[in-house]
């Protein structure tokens, strides 16, 4: 059997971080290969290199036995590779036919060509969608259906190797079954598929073989039939365990700062409940599509359609109004600090005191002396150089910017609830340690911290309580010594298939 894709010794490093180190594997015709690994293991870098979006520092790629230098996505497509990314690239206002051919060099100036239409029709037929109207606007399709159009796009351009990045993250069970069936059909046609996923259940259900990456290195490649689930999890996580997480002093069960009952967000979160005790860190663990981030946003008041029963310090709190939540000392740090956290052109000082403007203020007039004092003290507490107080905040590094957002939370006079989404995403090790220290400080002050994180090392290392979520429903709760990486991973990847309830 011929090898349709081979990768030898591919390495890629960015300043300060090694993304890939000497990765090699090969793929046969008609093989579905799972590509597994934690966040930061190097999966997306490898995909980008295969598709010509990024050039590797070392190593080579061969397609059908011929070595190629991947220069651009167009070239990759021409060689038979195709990618369906996590974020779909479809124009909702255009028809299915137009989207299938969008941006392709094969489309001539007078674009209505019978041949192109025929190929699109055939692509849909291959997917079992022959009855779909090619002229329907993509905007009228559900997300599951749109995903199929992306796959159809690859087929119409005759892709022999399809790379799917987390294809089922946002799909319903019915959609997932359909896609798995379609992929099996493509395999029967002799196409190869690289299936990047966190959903270990699907790895065993669909794939022939699996490649595991960890910290940029290739761990193993082998048939799925020769590996158990437990072994796979172990390979992904490795033996080493970071000691960077401050050992939390055993926290006696203190009173509850926030109690949540029956939190519901239509189509995203079903019946979420939680107790956030004072001085504790609660971690809501889940993957994309699990709704974890939406839970925290809803509790912060950012989701107007959220309903449920929330008590803070014994009194009920209304959902859907951010000023109200802020007034009850429930603060929020977004995972998108560029768009929803930082004020880029404003100074570091402005950013720090953004929530404390009333300090020393009289009749709406600010007291800059007081604000500067507060700013200076906050800067010191979070470890930002006081000389940077007058710099624009967008000149700071990512880690320092995140520290600013935490500084803002420290600024409130009374400890409350701090909700955070992915608080250490994209931040270097040094800043991470400082942020954990700040979180510790907040806990010592009596605040309740509720965070989401897709970094399981972090979850296990820092949380006092872990709640696992899968597709908007709570799977399990863990506390103290019960918190274990393997069980959390099984929960959030739906490996046990125990919850296949009617959505």
């Amino acid at each position, binding site marked *: 059997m011929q090898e349709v894709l081979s990768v030898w010794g591919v390495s890629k490093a960015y300043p300060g971080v090694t993304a890939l180190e000497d990765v090699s594997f090969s793929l046969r015709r008609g093989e579905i290969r799972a590509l597994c690994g934690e966040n930061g293991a190097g999966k997306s870098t490898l995909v980008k290199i295969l598709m010509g979006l990024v050039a590797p520092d070392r190593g080579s790629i061969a397609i059908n036995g011929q070595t190629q230098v991947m220069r651009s*996505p*167009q070239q990759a497509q021409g060689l038979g590779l195709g990618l369906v*990314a996590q*974020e*779909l*690239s*479809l*124009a*909702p*206002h*255009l028809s299915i036919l*137009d989207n299938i*051919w*969008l*941006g*392709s*060099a094969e*489309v*001539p*100036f*007078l*674009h*209505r060509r019978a041949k192109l239409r025929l190929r699109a029709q055939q692509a849909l037929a291959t997917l079992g969608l022959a009855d779909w109207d090619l002229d329907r606007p993509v905007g009228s399709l559900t997300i599951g259906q749109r995903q199929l159009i992306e796959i159809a796009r690859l087929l119409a351009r005759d892709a022999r190797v399809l790379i799917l990045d987390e294809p089922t993250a946002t799909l319903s069970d019915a959609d997932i079954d359909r896609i798995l069936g379609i992929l099996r059909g493509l395999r029967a046609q002799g196409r190869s598929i690289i299936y990047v996923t966190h959903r270990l259940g699907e790895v065993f259900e669909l794939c022939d073989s699996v490649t595991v990456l960890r910290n940029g290195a290739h761990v193993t490649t082998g048939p799925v039939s020769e590996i158990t689930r437990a072994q796979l999890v172990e390979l992904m996580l490795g033996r080493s365990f970071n000691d960077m997480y401050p050992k939390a002093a055993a926290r006696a069960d203190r009173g509850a700062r926030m109690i949540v009952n029956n939190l519901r967000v239509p189509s995203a979160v079903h019946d979420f409940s939680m107790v956030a005790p004072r001085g504790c860190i609660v971690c809501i663990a889940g993957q994309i599509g699990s709704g974890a981030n939406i839970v925290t946003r809803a509790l912060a008041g950012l989701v*107007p*359609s959220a309903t449920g029963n929330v008590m803070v310090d014994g009194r009920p709190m209304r959902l*859907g*109004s951010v000023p109200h939540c802020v007034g009850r000392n429930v603060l929020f740090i977004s995972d998108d600090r560029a768009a929803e956290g930082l004020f880029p052109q404003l100074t570091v000082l402005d950013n720090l005191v953004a929530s404390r403007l009333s300090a020393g203020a009289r009749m709406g007039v600010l007291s800059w002396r007081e604000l500067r004092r507060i700013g200076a003290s906050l800067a010191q507490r979070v470890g930002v150089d006081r000389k940077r107080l007058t710099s624009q905040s967008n000149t700071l590094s990512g880690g320092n910017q995140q520290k600013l957002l935490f500084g803002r939370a420290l600024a409130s006079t009374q400890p409350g609830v701090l909700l955070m989404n992915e608080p250490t995403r994209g931040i270097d090790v040094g800043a991470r340690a400082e942020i954990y220290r700040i979180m510790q400080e907040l806990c010592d002050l009596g605040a309740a911290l509720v965070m989401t994180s897709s970094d399981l090392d972090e979850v296990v290392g820092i949380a006092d309580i872990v709640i696992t979520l899968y597709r908007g429903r709570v799977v399990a709760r863990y506390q103290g010594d019960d918190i274990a990486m393997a069980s959390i991973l099984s929960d959030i990847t739906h490996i046990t298939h125990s919850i296949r309830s009617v959505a």
Partner: protein
Amino acid sequence: MWRQLAGPHWRPFTVLAACILLLAALDAGQGAFLSAATAYSTLQIFATVSLVTLGLGLTMMIREFDLSVVGMYGMAGCIAVLTGTEHPWLGFFLALAIGLAAGIAQGFIIVRLNLSSVGVTLGGLLVFVGIAFVLTESRSLPYDNLAVALLLNERFGGIFSIRSVVALAFFASAAMIFAWTRLGRDIIAIGSDRRAAMTTGVKVDALIIGIFAFSGLCAALSGVLLSYSLASASPAGLADVIAPAAAGAILGGISLGGGTGRPLGIAAGALTLAVLRSGLNAVGAPPFVNDIAMGAVLLTVAVLDGPDLARRLIVVRRLARRSPTA
């Protein structure tokens, strides 16, 4: 079927038909509205603003905005009048070339330096107005080639003139190019989801420059034809352009969120405004009705297209539900 008629593709034509019917009703058989004279004046008004509407509308379709059309309109007219007395074609093509070049320059600055189109075209607008004032020495210039002026406005076929035919032909070409070539698909994609267009390999930068070039060309063409036909050019522009152009584009189906609207729809939108203006005039309504109608339409569409409208309505509904128990 009703929903289709109200949908973005057909709505411009439905609205146009509704306006015509409304005015015919107001006319009540007096024959002031439903007459060849009114049709002629409608098409003349159409010819004055519609091309600018097309150019501006295309920039709005990709979620940008070309403010400089206002200035280019006046400047092109002045250039043509200044250089085209002996040789009208010279003035004509010179003005068009300058419009095209200015559009390319602005588009290039916007794309390469990644700047807001509003800011850059505002600068362009001020520069064009300034140039127009310098060229004309702050005066209105007469255009002595009256033969051309008369020719452009000469009525034939009962309702047409060369000016209006040129405008209609331009729209027809634009519509064909849009529907039958991949340019149209790519432009819609850019407006619909620019990131998706970039990822799939659409030449986004080149198209954006092209659209601003086209907008400049349209504004210049309109300005030249208007100045020639009125036999005069003024650095301050001879017609108030920005409001009817934006209104025409929006009536023509351009959504502020991008991706919707087609050249034929924009033609219908511009025609609707022209029909309203000349029709209201014909039935004896005072001119302010026009301004008010245009303003009201723009206001309504802007509010309905507001991204936070749905959120506000949820909040309002919640407050209403809560108040009896509060």
